[in-house]
């Protein structure tokens, strides 16, 4: 039962346990050293091996003799091994001096009493009566008293008892003691309050703190002496301790009584019932009296003293010593009354340190009872009845809590900060040894935090963070993700439009007129100035999407997924390899051997990555199955890998990817499934997600390549599309249009810039005309069927990029084809919410401006 040397049996169990206990005791003799302070307090004479101590206890024991049972003494000796072992281990300076604490206390107590009582002899007798209760409460008489006290007939006395006990324990010989408590005691002693008398048998325990109080009130010197001896406490802290001890407010001594009375009025009896273990305190009193000492001795007994007790500890210790009296002082001064609830984290004087590794400020443990405005008795008197009731209620609540806290805090600090540090350190070591590759093990956290810190511009983003940044930024929602891509595309188209506008065109005026006439004259029923053959969209070959799905299974899904994982494996290896870069070389310097090797490894890894993409596998014309690369690209994760692959591969490889995708564009899932069904309002969510993924991950790297490509390349790519792919089908899908837009707008930019020779331009124009002739009769089909409701930005982008490159005739055809759509959009923009309406207009305007018009003209007309 007494694992830590304090007796944990409940009082009522104790009597019955008292006899068997000694038998168990010998096994515990080893423990005793570790908690010498505790056990000494417990047993009173446990450490009799010490000469000083012998002297000390003889002094007190003599007086006790009649009160103490022999039985208990024997038990103590057996329990703690009498003259067993300690001195060699117990080299602690303070530890050994502390053992004399009692003696010094006694002496000072005596000294202090002489003037009061005028004679030493009465003091001595008083001593005999009181002291035993303190030092030997657990082992002796108090047990009997305890039982007595427990009688439920006088529950109202218990709060008082507990007040006493919570006050006394820490105040006893230990070290420091609140001056208030001392004053308190003096007052009680002088006045002999009625409650005391009614406490029939409990006289001894209640007087105990009194003695203790006086004792330790005079013990202050001892404490500072100890400090000096040990040379442990910082001077500042010593001062603080001293300051804390020198504030005796004698006038307050009357208040304890008042408060005790208050307690009895409400709250306490109830509390009593809920705290069956309450009598406890008195038993363990002596343990507590040693509270501060065990802490230090404990440290000495730690298995790794040298390591776990670096200097920081010494600075940590003092607050612990001080804390107890601090809290005691404030907690037990009834004059300090609350008007506000205590902050919760201050409830306990325990150290609330967050970071054990020496990050704790010396005074991290806040004193628990700060911020209570002092309030004297007169103030209570001035209150109205209601106020008083409320006040009393709060007061009782506070006292109740303080009482609880005091009870709980009796053994506070049993586990010292250094113990906690020690455990934390063990764990950190475990973590380190488990993690050979710290970064890899903690990859998610490290990179996540790096990305999260990206708002901080000072924080340089590492390569990993950048890898995921794009995806991270897309978290805001699908819509925004789409916008990102579309905006990039739009930029290119806009540049093309801008360039076209810079070049004066004769046709523009005419066009302006024609469009104006068409749409401005009568919005509801426009005059058909241009005869437009309406193409029936059902006339087109409309492959059954389900059939398309089944034919897509060129490679089974499992192998596709594992192929995609292969790509990722290579990518992650490369990412990791980047981290191992031997260090940047100064420009012009010969790369050292390490760098060369690193580069070679890198090249090999990139080659592996390239192979994992399976892009070089031959295209089997006869096979219905798509090319492996295109098949792999059908899964989302493969699409997501493309931007990351692009970072590593060279220009040629980029062209290869672009070409491969272009050649097989009608095989790509986003094209195959990307067409609107005849009556469909929207695409299936699954397809939409795929399109989104393709737009977000695959298009941007392609676009960034295309926006630097030569005109010949663009012409070639468009040629491939026209020759090998059904452009009509392409034009009815978002991604298909995106490709066409990409090529036409880039070509136009090159043309405007005049950087291509005439041959190239002529070739391009030829190609453009072919494209136009395929599409010219199907321009309305490129719109999603319910374009007013859906975002049709990509269509307007395409039309704009086409219009820029078109000759006058072509432009007229375009205008004729889509004029209804223009007007529909203008109308729709008026009914749509402001922002969406503006967006619609802006989209439409993109096309109009490519023709040299502006939507404002249109709006002005209406």
């Amino acid at each position, binding site marked *: 039962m007494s694992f830590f040397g304090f007796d944990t049996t409940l009082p009522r169990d104790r009597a019955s346990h008292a006899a068997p206990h000694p038998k168990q005791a010998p096994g515990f003799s080893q423990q005793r050293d570790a908690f010498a302070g505790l056990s000494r307090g417990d047993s009173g004479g446990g450490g009799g091996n010490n000469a000083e101590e012998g002297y000390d206890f003889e002094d007190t024991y003599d007086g006790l003799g009649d009160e103490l049972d022999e039985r208990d003494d024997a038990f103590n000796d057996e329990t703690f091994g009498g003259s067993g072992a300690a001195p060699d281990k117990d080299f602690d300076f303070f530890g050994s001096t502390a053992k004399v604490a009692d003696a010094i206390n006694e002496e000072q107590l005596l000294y202090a009493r002489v003037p009061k009582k005028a004679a030493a002899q009465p003091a001595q007798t008083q001593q005999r009566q009181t002291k035993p209760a303190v030092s030997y409460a657990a082992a002796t008489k108090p047990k009997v008293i305890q039982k007595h006290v427990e009688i439920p007939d006088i529950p109202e006395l218990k709060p008082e008892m507990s007040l006493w006990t919570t006050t006394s324990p820490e105040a006893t010989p230990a070290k420091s003691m609140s001056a208030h408590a001392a004053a308190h005691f003096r007052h009680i002693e002088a006045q002999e309050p009625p409650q005391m008398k009614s406490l029939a048998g409990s006289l001894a325990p209640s007087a105990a703190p009194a003695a203790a109080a006086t004792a330790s009130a005079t013990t202050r010197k001892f404490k500072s002496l100890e400090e000096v001896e040990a040379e442990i406490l910082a001077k500042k802290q010593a001062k603080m301790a001293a300051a804390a001890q020198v504030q005796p407010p004698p006038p307050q001594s009357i208040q304890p009584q008042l408060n005790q009375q208050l307690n009895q009025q409400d709250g306490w009896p109830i509390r009593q019932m809920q705290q069956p273990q309450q009598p406890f305190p008195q038993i363990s009193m002596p343990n507590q009296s040693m509270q501060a000492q065990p802490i230090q001795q404990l440290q000495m007994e730690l298995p790794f003293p040298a390591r776990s007790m670096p200097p920081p500890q010494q600075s940590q210790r003092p607050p612990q010593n001080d804390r107890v009296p601090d809290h005691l002082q404030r907690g037990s001064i009834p004059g300090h009354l609350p008007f506000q609830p205590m902050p919760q984290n201050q409830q306990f004087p325990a150290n609330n340190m967050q970071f054990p590794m020496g990050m704790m400020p010396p005074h991290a443990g806040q004193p628990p009872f700060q911020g209570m405005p002092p309030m004297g008795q007169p103030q209570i008197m001035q209150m109205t009845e209601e106020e008083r009731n409320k006040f009393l209620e709060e007061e009782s609540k506070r006292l109740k809590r303080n009482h609880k806290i005091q009870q709980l805090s009796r053994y506070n600090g049993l586990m010292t900060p250094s113990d906690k540090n020690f455990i934390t350190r063990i764990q950190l070591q*475990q973590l380190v040894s488990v993690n050979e*590759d710290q970064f*890899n*093990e903690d990859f*998610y*956290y490290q990179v996540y935090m790096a990305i999260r810190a990206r708002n901080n511009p000072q924080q340089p983003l590492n390569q990993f963070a950048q890898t995921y940044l794009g995806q991270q930024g897309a978290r805001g929602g699908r819509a925004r993700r789409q916008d990102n891509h579309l905006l990039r595309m739009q930029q290119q188209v806009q540049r093309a439009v801008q360039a076209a506008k810079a070049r004066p065109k004769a046709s523009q005026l005419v066009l302006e007129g024609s469009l104006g006439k068409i749409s401005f004259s009568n919005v509801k029923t426009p005059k058909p100035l241009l005869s437009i053959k309406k193409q029936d969209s059902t006339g087109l070959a409309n492959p059954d999407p389900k059939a398309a799905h089944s034919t897509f299974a060129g490679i089974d899904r499992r192998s596709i997924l594992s192929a995609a994982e292969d790509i990722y494996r290579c990518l992650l290896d490369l990412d990791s390899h980047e981290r191992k870069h031997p260090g940047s070389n100064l420009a012009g310097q010969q790369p050292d051997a390490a760098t060369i090797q690193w580069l070679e490894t890198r090249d090999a890894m990139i080659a592996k990555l390239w192979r994992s993409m399976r892009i070089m596998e031959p295209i089997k014309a006869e096979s219905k199955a798509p090319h492996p690369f295109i098949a792999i690209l059908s899964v989302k*994760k493969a699409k997501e890998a493309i931007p990351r692959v692009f970072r590593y591969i060279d220009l040629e490889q980029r062209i290869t990817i672009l070409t491969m995708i272009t050649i097989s564009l009608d095989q790509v899932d986003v094209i195959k499934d990307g067409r609107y069904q005849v009556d469909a309002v929207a695409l299936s969510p699954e397809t939409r997600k795929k399109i989104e993924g393709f737009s977000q991950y695959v298009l941007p790297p392609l676009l960034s390549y295309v926006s630097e490509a030569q005109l010949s390349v663009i012409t070639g790519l468009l040629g491939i599309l026209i020759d090998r792919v059904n452009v009509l089908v392409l034009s009815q899908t978002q991604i298909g249009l995106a490709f066409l837009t990409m090529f036409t707008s880039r070509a136009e930019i090159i043309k405007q810039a005049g950087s291509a020779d005439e041959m190239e331009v002529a070739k391009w124009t030829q190609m453009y005309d072919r494209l136009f002739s395929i599409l010219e009769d199907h321009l309305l089909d490129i719109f999603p069927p319910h374009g007013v409701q859906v975002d049709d930005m990509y269509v307007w982008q395409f039309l704009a990029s086409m219009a820029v490159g078109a000759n006058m005739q072509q432009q007229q055809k375009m205008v004729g084809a889509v004029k209804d759509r223009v007007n529909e959009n203008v109308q729709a923009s008026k009914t749509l919410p402001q922002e969406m309406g503006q967006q619609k207009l802006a989209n439409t305007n993109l096309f109009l401006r490519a023709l040299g018009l502006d939507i404002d003209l249109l709006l002005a007309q209406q």
Partner: protein
Amino acid sequence: MLFFSFFKTLVDHEVTIELKNDLSIRGTLKSVDQFLNIKLDDIHVVDEVKYPHLSAVKNVFIRGSVVRYVHLPANAVDTALLEDATRREAAAQANKAK
């Protein structure tokens, strides 16, 4: 260590921990350790009437081994990153096995 690493990023987020005895506790994740023990602050028990012993409890330390589910805030999870972290973990384990 993947989950350890992962849960570390959820500190200060609201999560719901469902234990193997069906008790569900919602609270702010304050800390997690290598055993996936979890510390929650400002807790409330989902079915409070059933668990009166937690009515006056303000924060809890939950043993990792008794957790059945952790309900996460979706927007605090970077899926792409988590996928890669998983790949790395798998690769590391494959290496260890060799």
